[in-house]
C-alpha cells in the first residue's frame, strides 16, 4: 500500500519528531510511505485569512503532489480536513480541479483514523507509560469525526491510562491566525483548557493537532506548570523514533 505522508508545515518547522513518529507507525503497519519533498503547506492559513487565490494555488500544488498515491495520511485533523472538505469547495468553480480535489479528498485520512479504520492495526510500537488526558481538536472532532480512533489506539498500550478531563471537546483557543490576532482572548480560552487539563491529574496531555498542542504547552508553562507533558498522539503511539 503506497501512502503519501503529508507532514504539515507546522510539524516540519516545530516538531519533526511527530513526522518521524507518523512515518514509523505507517511503516510498522506495513505501508510503503513516500514523503514528497516539494510539499509545503496545505493552504489553510490563506483560506482562513480570506486569501482565496493563495489558498487555491496551494491546493492545486498539493493535489498535484499527492494524487498519485493510494492514500494520503497526515498527523493533523485540521490539515486533513482542509484537504478533504475544503479543497473540493474552494476549487468548485474549476470542474477539472474540483474533480481531482474530490478524488484526492476521498483518499485523505487523519493519521489515527487511517490506522484504525483503514489499516485496522492490532498493536502499536510505542511503550509510553503514565496517565494521559486527551484533547479533542475542533476540526478533527467536528468535521472528520476523530474521537474514538486515538482513544482506541491508546487503549492498546499497556502502560497508558486515560484520565478524561472535563470539557475535552472544547476549543483550546488556538484558531490559527486567531492566536496571533487576538492573543489575549486566545490565551484566556487556553487558560480554561489548561485548568481542565490540570484538574484531570494526568501526567500528560495528548492531542492530534500540533497547533493546539503548542498553544496548550505555551499556556501551561506560562502558568508555571513545568511537569505536565504535552505530546502529539503519534509520538505516544510510536515511541522512540
Amino acid at each position: 500500500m503506497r501512502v503519501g505522508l503529508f507532514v504539515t508545515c507546522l510539524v516540519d518547522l516545530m516538531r519533526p519528531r511527530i513526522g518521524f513518529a507518523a512515518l514509523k507507525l505507517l511503516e510498522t503497519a506495513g505501508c510503503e510511505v513516500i514523503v514528497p519533498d516539494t510539499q509545503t503547506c496545505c493552504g489553510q492559513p490563506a483560506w482562513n485569512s480570506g486569501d482565496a487565490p493563495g489558498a487555491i494555488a496551494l491546493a492545486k500544488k498539493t493535489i498535484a503532489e499527492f494524487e498519485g498515491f493510494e492514500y494520503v495520511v497526515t498527523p493533523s485533523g485540521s490539515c486533513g480536513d482542509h484537504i478533504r472538505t475544503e479543497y473540493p469547495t474552494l476549487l468548485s468553480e474549476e470542474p477539472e480541479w474540483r474533480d481531482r480535489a474530490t478524488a484526492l479528498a476521498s483518499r485523505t485520512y487523519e493519521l489515527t483514523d487511517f490506522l484504525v479504520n483503514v489499516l485496522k492495526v492490532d498493536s502499536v510500537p510505542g511503550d509510553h507509560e503514565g496517565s494521559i488526558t486527551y484533547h479533542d481538536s475542533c476540526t478533527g472532532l467536528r468535521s472528520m469525526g476523530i474521537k474514538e480512533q486515538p482513544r482506541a489506539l491508546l487503549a492498546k498500550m499497556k502502560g497508558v491510562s486515560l484520565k478524561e478531563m472535563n470539557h475535552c471537546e472544547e476549543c483550546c483557543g488556538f484558531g490559527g491566525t486567531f492566536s496571533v490576532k487576538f492573543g489575549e482572548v486566545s490565551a484566556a480560552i487556553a487558560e480554561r483548557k489548561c485548568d481542565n487539563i490540570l484538574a484531570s491529574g494526568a501526567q500528560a496531555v495528548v492531542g492530534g493537532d500540533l497547533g493546539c498542542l503548542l498553544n496548550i504547552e505555551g499556556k501551561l508553562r506560562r502558568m508555571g506548570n513545568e511537569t505536565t507533558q504535552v505530546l502529539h498522539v503519534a509520538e505516544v503511539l510510536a515511541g522512540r523514533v
Partner: protein
Amino acid sequence: MEIKSMHFKANASAKLANVVLQGNLKNAKGKFVTKRAEAIKDLDDFEATRDAAEAIRNKVIDNLDLWLERFEQKAQDTGATVLWAKDGAEVCRLVIEIAKKHGVKKVTKSKSMLSEEAGLNHALEAAGIQPVETDLGEYILQVDNNEPPSHIIAPAVHKSLDEVADLFHKVHGTPRKTEIPALTREAREVLREHFLTAGMGLSGGNFLVAETGSVALVTNEGNGRMVTTMPKVHVVITGIEKVIPTLEDLSTLMRLLPRSATGQSISNYFSILTGVKKPEESDGPEHLYFVLVDSGRADVVGTDFHAMLRCIRCGACMNHCPVYQTIGGHAYGWVYPGPMGSVLTPLYAGMENSIDLPHAATLCNQCGIVCPVKIPLPDLLRKLREKQTERGLRPITERIGLRLWAWVAQQPKLYALGASIGARYLKWLAGDTNRIRLLPTAPEWTLGRDFPAPQGKTFRELYAARRKRTGDKP
C-alpha cells in the same frame, strides 16, 4: 444603535480585565450549555428535526417576497395594519406616528432586538414618549443608564446578583435586597403601575405565521402578555425574515427554539396573537400594527450569506462560543454578539465598521453544530474574511504578508530554506530553555503564554539526512 465594533480588540481586553464580569460569564456558561444538552435529549431525532427546521426556513427565505405578501394579506384580514420600514430611522418614525395618532404618552415594551437596532427608545424619548422596558433583564439595563443588552435572549446576563441589588437600591430608593425573589417582586411593583397606565404595548416577534397572519411570542416572564393585551394599541416590530408558512411549521420550530435557547422544552409563556380584539372578546388590543423591518435583510437574499437569514435568534451559538464565553457580548460593539453577531454586524451595520468581528472566532464550529437551523457560521465568517480582502479592508501589512507567504509556499526550495532559517531563529530565541517568552515576529502570542521552542532543524532536513545515511533515494 451606535456601532462600536471597530473597537472590538480594546473592548475585549477591558472585558478580560474585569474580574466581576469574568465571574458572571463563568456562571452563565455552564447553565446554558448544560441545560441545552439535557433538553435536546427529549427529542426522538434531534438531527432530523434540525433538518426539518432548516427546510422550513429555506422555503421562506428563498421566496421571501411571496411569503411576506401572504402574511400581509392574512394579517390585514384579521384587522391588523401592516407597515414596512426600510431602516431603523423609518421604524422610529412609524412607531412615533402610531403613538401620536393614538395620543400615547407611555409605551410598555416586551423584548425586541429590532428596536435596539433602530435605537427606538432614544427616538421615543426625544419625541416626548416614555418607553418602559418590562422584560426583567431589559428593565435592569434601562434603569442602569440605558446600558445595551449583552445577549439576545438574556440581556443582563453580564450582571451579577450583587450588581442588580446595588442598582435597585440606588434607583428605587428602597432598602437593599439580596434575594432574587425579593428583587423580582420589587421590579414587578414598579412595572405594574406602568402596565396599567401605558397607552401602547410594543413587542418583538419570534415568528410571523403567514397562514394565519399571527405573531408568535416566546417569553418566560409574563410581561409579554401584559404588553400585548392590556393597552389599546399593540405594535409588533420584527425583521422581514421572521415569517414562516404555517402553524405546523411553527410547532416544528418550537421544538427547537426553547431547547436551543434556554434548555427548556417549552418556554413559560408561548403566545400566538392573531388580529385585534373582537366584540365578543374580553381583552386584546383594539389596534394592532406590524412594523416589518428590512434594515439590510433584503440585500442579503441570494448572496453568499443567504443562509444567515434562517436564524431564529436562539442564542445557542453565542452560549457555546469560546470567544463569547470569555469576553461577553458588549465587546462585540453592536446589537448582536457572538458568532451570529459577527456575521450580522458586517452585513447590517457595515463591513468597514466591524473589521475585527469575522476574525474574532477560532472557527471551532461549536456554533455550527448547535445551530438549530444549521447555519454554517464558520463558513460565513470565513467568507466575510474573503470579502474584506477583496475590498481591500485588511491592513496592508497583513495583505502583503499573506501574499508573500503564499507565494513562497509555492516555491519548495525557497520555502525549505525559509523554514530552516525560521527553525534555527526560533531555537536561538529560546536559548537554553524550552520556550520563548517574547516572540518578536508575533508578539500577540506571547502576551499571555509562552511559545514552545522548536527542535531546531526542519523535518525535511532531518529526513533528507536520514535517507542519505541509510542510502535510500528520496
